Every structure is written in structure tokens, then in C-alpha cells.
């Protein structure tokens, strides 16, 4: 049953509607591998929490099946699923001490007193809060509450832990610190984690795989580097990392190359990824760091433009260029030895490789 190749969780054709009119989750098919850290990433309202709630058992799926360890769980109540969960605002029980919060899942499982005590102590050590056992959640800082919530979700050794925007309430520094901490806990325990966030850098930092949600649909499910380097549609390209968008019409498709007539003027050679035939609209996606200033003459795409704005950011210089009729075209010039030095309002030549420019859906 716990064959390690079998996915721990499978969503099979799952749909969800709250009101019978709008599908909040549309036909979700998703396998989560044992031991994996899978992140559901998407803008607010895209249905991530709903998916998590269906998996935890707090919302019924309107259609389709969810399996856990190979067994369908649609009719298993949440308290029998054995899934750990970290809530957005932690949901630590305010009338219990930290130790009592941690002991709660163990008492429910009727463990012995000594066993409970040693597990609580171990869990507190894991999140580096051994002195806080006697405090109430209200007496802890946000980061400490966050750690206790993680410890509570793990203290009863679940195979699977769900986390719904657990770091949303923390400030930036603490959030980054906690990202690494949760990642390390995941690695050392080997537990499977389904993590929900709307913060793409958080998703990139922590995950083995990321499912990008929009409008109740998984737009792309890939590893972080794949998502960044090879986005399959305009939404993913836009949502993850920075991205120059050029809209245009396809004039020719030829195997691994297509030619696009960009709306503002200019013919661009691009990699056809997600396009229709000749005459169809397309969005060209190009990462700012893949654009070169003063490219070699044989480069497939070379254009004349004007420098609009220069922002010095230390490790690179962010340059806004007006090119192909778009004045929001960003070029990142690395602050390396002998980098091009530009002046505002000066003319500039920019270029890029055909494979770095992906032609996606319009």
C-alpha cells in the first residue's frame, strides 16, 4: 500500500463549486509524490485554499475523487485522515499553553503521559523554542507562533502536512528565515508537504515542484527552474519572475522558429511554444536578463531603441528601453567588468537569441 512509487495524494478530475454557479476549481488532476514539497502558487482567489480544504476534508469535492495513500477519501471525515495542517493565522488554541497545544493531537491518540512529554519536548527543540512550553500563544511573537503551529502539525508524525500561506503574516526578514527553516524540517523528516502561497519567490525557494493556479485551473506543474525558464503560457511567464511582453501576430511558423510581426513595429524571430497558425495573435515573453546590449551582428533579433531610464541596483543596472514601440521594455545589465555604459535618452542597440524569446498564447 505504501509503495514508495505510488503518489501519496491524487486529485482525479476534481471540481468544486460553492454556489452551484461558478466552478472555483475546474477539473483538477494532480499527483503528489511521497516526500515531495509541492507548492500551489497563484493569485488570490484562484482556488488554492479550496483545494487544500478538499484535501483536508473540510470541503466536499463537487465532482471527482481524491485519494490518499491509494484509498479514496471523499467519505473519510477530516479527523480520520491523519493529515497535519498549518493554518494561515496559525489557529493555535488561545486557551491552552504551547505545550498543551502540542500535546493535543497526542492526547487525542491516547498516548501515554511519558510518551507525550518526550514528543512535545522534541517538537519544541525541533523549532528551537524549548523555553516556551508554558506560555500561551498570545504571549508569543508572530514568528514563534508560526513555529509552534508547524511543530503542532508535525508532532504526531503525519505522512502529509498542508500549509496555507503560513508565512503571510510575517515581515520580510522573518519570512525568509522561516522559508529555510521549513524547508530544512521537510528535508530532515521526509514528510510530504503541500504548501499554498501567492508569493512566487517563496515558491521558488522552497518547492520541489510548483503547481501554478489561475482561475481554478493548474496552468503549469513543473520544477522551479522549469517554470522560470520554460513557461508554457503567458500567465505563468508573467506571474513568475520578471518578463517583457511583446504582443504581435504570427506571420510564419517553421519548425523551431516562428516569425512575429510585433504590434509596435519590428519583426521578431521566436521559439513557438504555445501558438496557433499563421495569422494568430501571440504574446512574446522574454526575460530581461536574456537581452544583450550591442549584440553581435549575426544575432537573429537586433533592434534600435532609446534608453528611457536607468536605475542603479548594485549588482545590476535596470534599464528601461523604448523598442519596437514598447516603452516598458526592461533590460538588466549585469554590473560586470567592462559592461556597457549607457546614458538616458541615448540610442541603444539591443538583441536576443531566438530560443530565449518564447511565443505563447495571446
Amino acid at each position, binding site marked *: 500500500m505504501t509503495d514508495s512509487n505510488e503518489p501519496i495524494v491524487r486529485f482525479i478530475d476534481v471540481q468544486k463549486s460553492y454556489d452551484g454557479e461558478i466552478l472555483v476549481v475546474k477539473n483538477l488532476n494532480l499527483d503528489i509524490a511521497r516526500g515531495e514539497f509541492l507548492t500551489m502558487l497563484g493569485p488570490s482567489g484562484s482556488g488554492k485554499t479550496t483545494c487544500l480544504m478538499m484535501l*483536508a*476534508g*473540510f470541503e466536499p469535492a463537487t465532482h471527482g475523487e481524491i485519494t490518499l495513500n491509494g484509498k479514496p477519501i471523499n467519505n473519510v*471525515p*477530516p*479527523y480520520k*485522515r*491523519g*493529515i*497535519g*495542517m498549518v*493554518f*494561515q*493565522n496559525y*489557529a493555535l*488554541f*488561545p*486557551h491552552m499553553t504551547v505545550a498543551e497545544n502540542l500535546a*493535543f*493531537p497526542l492526547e*487525542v*491518540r491516547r498516548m501515554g503521559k511519558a510518551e507525550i512529554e518526550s514528543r512535545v519536548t522534541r517538537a519544541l527543540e525541533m523549532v528551537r523554542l524549548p523555553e516556551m512550553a508554558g506560555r500561551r500563544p498570545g504571549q508569543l511573537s508572530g514568528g514563534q507562533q508560526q513555529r509552534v503551529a508547524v511543530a*503542532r*502539525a508535525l508532532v*504526531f508524525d503525519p505522512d502529509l502536512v*498542508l500549509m496555507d500561506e503560513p508565512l503571510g503574516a510575517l515581515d520580510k526578514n522573518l519570512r525568509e528565515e522561516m522559508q529555510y527553516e521549513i524547508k530544512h524540517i521537510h528535508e530532515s523528516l521526509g514528510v510530504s508537504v503541500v504548501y499554498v502561497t501567492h508569493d512566487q519567490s517563496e515558491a521558488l525557494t522552497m518547492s520541489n515542484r510548483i503547481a501554478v493556479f489561475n482561475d481554478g485551473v493548474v496552468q503549469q506543474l513543473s520544477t522551479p527552474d522549469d517554470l522560470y525558464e520554460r513557461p508554457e503560457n503567458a500567465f505563468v511567464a508573467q506571474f513568475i519572475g520578471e518578463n517583457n511582453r511583446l504582443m504581435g501576430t504570427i506571420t510564419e511558423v517553421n519548425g523551431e522558429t516562428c516569425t512575429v510581426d510585433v504590434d509596435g513595429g519590428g519583426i521578431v524571430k521566436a521559439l513557438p511554444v504555445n501558438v496557433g497558425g499563421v495569422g494568430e495573435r501571440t504574446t512574446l515573453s522574454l526575460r530581461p536578463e536574456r537581452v544583450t546590449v550591442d549584440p553581435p551582428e549575426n544575432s537573429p533579433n537586433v533592434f534600435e531603441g532609446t534608453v528611457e531610464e536607468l536605475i542603479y541596483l548594485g549588482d545590476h543596472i535596470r534599464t528601461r528601453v523604448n523598442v519596437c514601440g514598447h516603452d516598458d521594455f526592461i533590460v538588466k545589465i549585469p554590473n560586470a567588468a567592462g559592461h556597457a555604459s549607457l546614458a538616458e535618452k541615448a540610442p541603444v542597440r539591443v538583441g536576443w537569441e531566438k530560443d530565449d524569446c518564447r511565443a505563447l498564447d495571446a
Partner: protein
Amino acid sequence: MANETDTGRYEPLRSASGEPLKVSLRRSLRRQKLQALGLVAPLFLFVLVTFLAPIGGMLFRSVENQIVGDTLPRTVAALGEWNPNVQELPDEEVFAAMVADLKIAREARTASRVGQRLNYEFSGMSSLFRSTARKVARIDEPPYKDALIKAHKGWAEPATWKVIQRVSAKYTPGYFLAAVDAEQTVDGDIRMLPDRQRVYLPLFWRTMLLSAFITLMTFLLGFPIAHLLATVPTRISNLLIIMVLLPFWTSLLVRTTSWIALLQKEGVINDLLVGIGILSDESRLTMIHNATGTIVAMTHILLPFMVLPLYSVMKTISPNYVRAAKSLGATPAYAFFKVYFPQTVPGIGAGAILVFILSIGYYITPELVGGTSGTFISNRIAYNISSSLNWGLAAALGAILLGIVIVLYWLYDKIVGIDNMKMG
């Protein structure tokens, strides 16, 4: 002084101008305080004049005892010399003073009032004063002692004089003693009345007991409603809250009398039970004009005071707590009792104390539906105010009721903490 910091002692912090920081802070806050006072002042004055002062005045009547000293000033002065352990009856001088006082009292028509007052302490005094006052005009020469005793032989009783001497003080514990079914004997000892004659202690006890039961009923009925209100979507909960509040927009009298219509012997419920054959016509239930009637009607009337504080607390409890408990393996019942219920305790406390305090002072409903076994102490207070005109006793009973409420409030603060109480 300036070097003292080296030895570990610190001067108070000073502001830029050199004065101590605390002083300048206080001055900067004074304006704010004055402003706040100004905003509160009109209401405070209103409450003082129309509420606190009358209540204070009324409570003062529970110990006030000017009437004896004011009506019989000469007698009271003359009695100061008399020691009942030495002399059986007071001197002729005292009798003379009494005759003089009574003549004036007769003219001023205050004789029967003082007689009534003394009658609370020692029965027979009222008729003694009334009948003597009628005859006192004809007594115009000494010896006054014989003349008075001739007018009424009560004046030959040492007890009569002992009571007058004792009650001549400006303040009296008598009303409070009466309010707890105790009395002072002629010799001034305090003793409880025999069980059969006790009225007020059993009534206090019944008031508390019925109020506690009513509080329990409102809790049992109100908790599920409040929970429902807090969990259904806002659209529906708004409608339900209006239904909870509906009784507030109906007159209290209408609500109470409609319970009479429902519950009486020939009422809707009895008719229905007889009609469908559960009861025979002779065995109709007595559900009104007794404790049952009071409990039913009061539970209905006070229910919103339990539901609203509970609702406002439950509304703030995120559903994620119970979800978290379930995800940790707790059954719904366990999650409810261990996680949800403890968080509603401030609301239960607020609702319970509100309902209980309102209930022990309730008047109209027990008066209308309580019969004899379902009335409260407040009905007895009203009786003493309007029928027996013993305002001192009414004031003492009211003061004890107020004392009970304050003690309960204090206890609640000790146990739950007023800060934890959420009204809305």
C-alpha cells in the same frame, strides 16, 4: 547630584527644558483629560440627578429613623435618664413629656404615624398611640402617669417604654433586621424569627434559585441559537438576529399576557392537549400563576440577553480552530468541548451575569404570572412601597438586593475577569 550616576543611581529623566519628564507628560495630558471630562459631564449630571441621588435617598430610608425623635422630642430627652434595670417604670416627668408630645402630635396628625413606626418593633404600639391620642386632649393636670395608664393600660408596660427608648436613636438597624427575618427583642437582643414566620429569607432564596434556573434555561436554549447565528452566512444570520430581537419591539406586557393566554387552564396549550386526548378535561395542567409560569415567561423574555453576548463572542471565534482540532485528530464532539466551548466562556459569563442580574430584580412578569409561588423579592418590595407603606423595609430589602448584585459582580470579576466579558 549630577555625578550620582556613577554609583548606579539615576536622576529622573528630564525633558528638553529641564523639568522632569513625568511632570511635562502629565501637563500635556491634562488638556486631553479635561476634554474627556467635558464630554462626559452632561450625562454624568443627568445620571446623578435622576438616578444616583434618588437611589441614594431611597437607600438612606433603610436606616433613617428621625420620626420618633422628631415627633416625641420631650419624651426622648426625658427617657435618657431612665434605667429599666433599676426602675420598673419611668418617672412622672417622662409621662408629662409624653402627654405634651402627644398633644402636639395630635394637632399635627403625626401620632398614628409614630405609632405605626413603633409597631414594626413591638406589636400593639399602633393601637396604643391611636387610642391614647384620641384621649390625650382631656388630660390637663398631673399626675400624668396615672392619667395615661388610665387612658390605656399599655403605658403601664415596661416594654412600651423600653421600645420607645431604644427606637429613639436617629438610625436604626430595625429595617435590615426585618428584611432578613430577624428582630430585636424588647431587651435589645437580636434573634431570628421562628421558621414559620420567616418571609424574606425564603423569598430571597427563591428569587436566587428561580433566577439561576432561568439563567440555565436561557443558556441551554440560547447557546445553539447563538452558534447557528455565528456560523450561517451573513445574509441568513441578519434575518435570524432580527427574529431574536423581535421580542424587544413588542411591549413587555403584551409578551407576558400572551403567555397567560397560552398557559392558563383554559389556554391554548391545555385546550390542545385535551383536544388531542393526551389530557382529560379534569386534569388540565397548572402552568401559570406559579413558579412554572414565571420560569417560562422570564426565560422567553430574557433569552436575547443571553443570545447576543454569546453571538458576539462566537462570531470572533475563527472556524479554523475547530478545523485545526479536527485535522489533529479530534472527533467533532471532542473538538467542540475542548476547543470551541472554552473560547465561548467569556460570552457565557457575560450572558449569564446579565440574565441573572436582570432576573433577580424583575418585577412585572412575576407579578402577572407568578401567583404566590412564583413571585420574587421585587414584588415584595413593591408591596411594601405601595400597599403597606413601609418604605424603610422596602429600602432595606432593595439595599440587600443591590448588595447581592454587587457581590456577584465582584465574584465574577475574580473568577472570569470583567475584561474578558464581551457584550458586543
